[in-house]
């Protein structure tokens, strides 16, 4: 046991492994949160055109594009997407690994968020839309002022789920040109082949990050639900 700790201490502190870990931690959080934000923006747009596509020909065209996008990004593993973006699409231009990872994770989560958002919008009673329309509000105005705020409230728990899944998915970002938590600890572990402590520490770190995220999501949800009795 003592040997394991010594080996870990040697790599983590003396050889400066903690710098990698800190950078990895920062990157993991940046990729997860920025990725989700990009995902929410893309996903919301796609969901909107898909919902509006039922009643407008213009939106229907965009909805088809959205369907193709969702199909492509949900149908392939994220690591394959990372590899394709790294070695094919971004191979000609030099681009920071972190930016690349944020883009890929954003696009990937956008595909999932679009379905979450669509479900959220459809979960709002049609009566709400009808009530807005009968008061003389236009379709976009009703959607924006009445349906959308309620939809967002409904999807917060699912979006929290998506954030957690995304955070864990970032563990593959280390395969292409960026430092992340998993890669940082893997470097420590493989330096002297003492796996136990680094990997258990790695698991613990993810667990703590995700517990904090869960807590934050709960707080946000509670704030938004103040208009309800549940």
């Amino acid at each position, binding site marked *: 046991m003592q040997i394991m700790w010594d080996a870990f201490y040697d790599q983590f502190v003396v050889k400066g492994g903690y710098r990698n870990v800190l950078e990895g931690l920062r990157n993991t959080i940046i990729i997860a949160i920025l990725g989700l934000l990009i995902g929410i923006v893309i996903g919301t747009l796609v969901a909107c055109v898909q919902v509006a596509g039922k009643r*407008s020909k213009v939106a229907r065209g965009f909805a088809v594009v959205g369907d193709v996008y969702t199909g492509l990004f949900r149908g392939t593993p994220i690591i394959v997407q990372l590899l394709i973006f790294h070695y094919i699409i971004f191979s000609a231009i030099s681009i920071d690994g972190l930016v690349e990872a944020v883009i890929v994770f954003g696009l990937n989560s956008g595909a999932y968020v679009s379905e979450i958002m669509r479900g959220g919008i459809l979960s709002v009673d049609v009566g709400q839309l009808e009530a807005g*329309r*009968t008061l*003389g509000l236009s379709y976009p105005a009703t959607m924006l002022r009445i349906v959308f*705020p*309620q939809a967002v409230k409904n999807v917060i728990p699912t979006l929290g789920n998506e954030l957690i899944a995304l955070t864990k998915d970032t563990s593959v970002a280390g395969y292409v040109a960026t430092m992340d938590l998993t890669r940082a600890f893997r470097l420590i572990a493989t330096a002297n082949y003492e796996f136990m402590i680094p990997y258990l520490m790695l698991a613990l770190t993810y667990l703590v990050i995700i517990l904090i995220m869960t807590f934050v999501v709960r707080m946000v949800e509670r704030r938004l639900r103040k*208009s309800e009795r549940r």
Partner: protein
Amino acid sequence: MKDAEQKSLCPEAEKAQLPQKRVQTEKVSAPKFAKSEKTPVEPTDPNAMLEVQHLTKRFGQLVVLDDISEKIVQGEKVAIIGPSGSGKSTFLRCLNVLEDPTDGYVFFEGNNLCDLKVDINIQRRRMGMVFQQFNLFNNMNVLKNITLAPVHVGLQDLRKIKRKNFFTKISNLFRGKNKKRALLPVETTAKEIRENAVNNAMRLLERIGLADKASAYPSTLSGGQRQRIAIVRALAMNPKVMLFDEPTSALDPEMVGEVLELIKELADEGMTMVIVTHEMGFAREVATRVMFMDGGKIVEQGPPSEVFGAPKNERLKDFLSKVL
């Protein structure tokens, strides 16, 4: 929701059968229309507030409304009764094109609501609607529920005027001294619109005795309170006509009274209204005209004393014997 603006009204197949009417498809635009032989449809009676001509609604094969032509003049209180599935609600929803008619036209104060060139949102501002399920906005408190539409519409108009003035100013720069165009007058400010809306909402809330609930959320209110607020929300737009879609059907028997009381008050003030209802006593008391619908047609109509007192139609007799 299917919306009238986006949909064609008459399938092409109808063209041959109904040559006297204008067939409106999505692609009919102003010049094309002028070229065609057919004259624009017009309401037969310019004084009618609401008029429907040959209103037909089909859901697939099911005919819900079967070629209804009807007029409702200002000040009338029309109660629509009938068995479920007879098309009462659909008829009411067609009156403000919440349901787009398969065929036929709806006129509101001479404006053809089925015409894609008519801005339906502007017309709907003057038609209030109250739903069976209240449909208060769950994410807003009571005051916000009532002020949302007046403020939104007011600000929209204000912005429109300001935008127009802005372009007029720019084009005025290039005009001669005597050729300057006048600016549209800007009468209110955004702040004033908001204040007026809030004052008006509080006045209405006080009238129904719910001023203390202004900051409550709909989910904390009883059904009767919610429905009265829904009525007040529609009133905040100063509508010319109110459409009630079974306003008391989702309420506890205890709360029906307070809602009917408010509707009766409105009726006494001279509001034009169309009420789909199962409250026969109420229909008899308030309505100036009762329509009995069955199978998508208005089978019998007349003053309440006649419809309830001396029904002629067999189906109506049967219906009344069951519900009275």
